[in-house]
């Protein structure tokens, strides 16, 4: 039976050899899959957090029936939505109707895939970076992909043959493009300070002091634009239930409806992660002895709680004031901030 052990030895050597030859590819694929799975499972956690926190803000308990502290609530919601009948009206464009929520989730996941979570660490002699992908123009990539996410609403509004959907899609996409500009322009002031578009470099540049202390106005502008970009309150007119019969996702039922919200939650996480990376110092612990990735997670969770806090605190902004605010207040302030930053840097 000697040849059996010899054959197994050779097989094992071959496997190890081929794995170690293609390690970067395998590591990259595993990372990509882990990112996608993590993103899809952070959404139920966020749903739970939102409902509990909003309940607390409104002086009531959140869901607490399904499982301890209501942990099973998102699962119950998902199961319920899976079993809902998929109603599509006869004159709707079937292919585009199904494409719209897919576009929303797809762009959300791709935008999330380039966010770094921590500094590179060494495992088995391979430096593994905690990223989905080390795209060198990280922040430009995120903005480009967020721009593509607008098409989800546009296609949803166009493909359901419904006046309200069309109007809702028009309004929400107009809102998103207005605030996307301020998002990009306020991030430019930060890029002046770091001199690179890569998200990793931005964290490295904040090792001594987080940028929120140097650029408080940019932080405010970026955060407000980020809240508007993710269609969260107080800018959530497109999806408010009392307005326009739930806007562009009027005709969507079941899982497709859930997809829109899943995309919105993933966008929320991406936006919080971006604010953390750009302004709060990413995973820099600033002397507190915890793991960097825990510091990052804590900052992101804090920002998510701020998102939910804003939702329970502010009334919804009327649409014309929303657009006026975006173009007349945010945009000039972003340009002003950029001018001041540039001038101060040159002098």
């Amino acid at each position, binding site marked *: 039976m000697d040849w059996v052990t010899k054959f197994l030895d050779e097989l094992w050597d071959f496997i190890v050899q081929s794995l170690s030859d293609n390690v970067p590819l395998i590591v990259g694929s595993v990372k990509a899959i882990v990112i996608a799975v993590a993103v899809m499972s952070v959404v139920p956690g966020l749903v739970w957090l939102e409902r509990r926190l909003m309940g607390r803000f409104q002086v009531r308990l959140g869901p607490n029936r399904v499982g301890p502290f209501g942990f099973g609530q998102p699962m119950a919601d998902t199961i319920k939505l899976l079993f*809902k009948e998929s109603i599509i009206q006869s004159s709707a464009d079937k292919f585009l109707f199904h494409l719209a929520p897919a576009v929303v989730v797809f762009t959300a996941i791709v935008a999330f895939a380039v966010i770094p979570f921590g500094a590179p660490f060494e495992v088995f002699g391979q430096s593994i970076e905690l990223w989905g992908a080390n795209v060198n123009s990280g922040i430009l990539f995120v903005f480009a992909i967020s721009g593509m996410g607008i098409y989800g609403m546009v296609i949803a509004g166009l493909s359901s043959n419904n006046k309200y959907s069309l109007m809702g899609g028009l309004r929400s996409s107009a809102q998103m493009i207005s605030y996307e500009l301020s998002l990009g322009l306020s991030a430019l002031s930060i890029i002046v300070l770091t001199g690179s578009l890569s998200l990793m470099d931005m964290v490295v540049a904040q090792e001594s002091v987080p940028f929120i202390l140097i650029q408080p106005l940019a932080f405010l502008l970026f955060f407000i634009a980020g809240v508007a970009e993710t269609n969260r309150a107080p800018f959530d007119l497109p999806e408010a239930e009392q307005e326009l019969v739930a806007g562009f996702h009027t005709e969507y039922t079941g899982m497709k409806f859930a997809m829109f919200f899943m995309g919105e939650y993933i966008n929320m996480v991406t936006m919080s992660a971006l604010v953390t990376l750009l302004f709060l110092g990413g995973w820099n612990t600033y002397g507190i002895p915890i793991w960097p990735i825990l510091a990052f997670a804590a900052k992101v969770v804090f920002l998510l709680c701020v998102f939910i806090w804003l939702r329970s605190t502010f009334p919804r902004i009327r649409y014309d004031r929303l657009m006026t605010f975006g173009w007349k207040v945010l945009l000039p302030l972003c340009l002003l901030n950029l001018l001041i930053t540039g001038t101060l840097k040159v002098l």
Partner: protein
Amino acid sequence: MPTDYAFNYTAVIVAAGFGFGGIGFTFILSRLLAPKRPSLMQTIAYECGIIPEGQGNTKYNIRYYLFALFFLIFAVEAVFMFPWVVVFLALPSSAFISMMIFLAILIFGLAYAWRKGVLQWR
């Protein structure tokens, strides 16, 4: 071809593909699990429960188109500003002046639109 570059974008596409796969899986699951009870009411567009009338030829505000055009123009401006911001410290100060001219021309455009009252009223 620099291989890590290819791997990075491949990893992004793999993640996106996995996301697509997950989406497709939930769609298929939903299609299998959901009941199908077709009725006449389902095939009509939703309009607060009443039968919809008219063909959807409502008058929309032209401002939406204007804002889309503004977004296009300012997005091109932002795209010009991205390389400037990255090489900001390595440039001579004359580059700063030329960028300020660029920005001034566009801020003039924004101020013109503001004065004409086009940015008002959604």
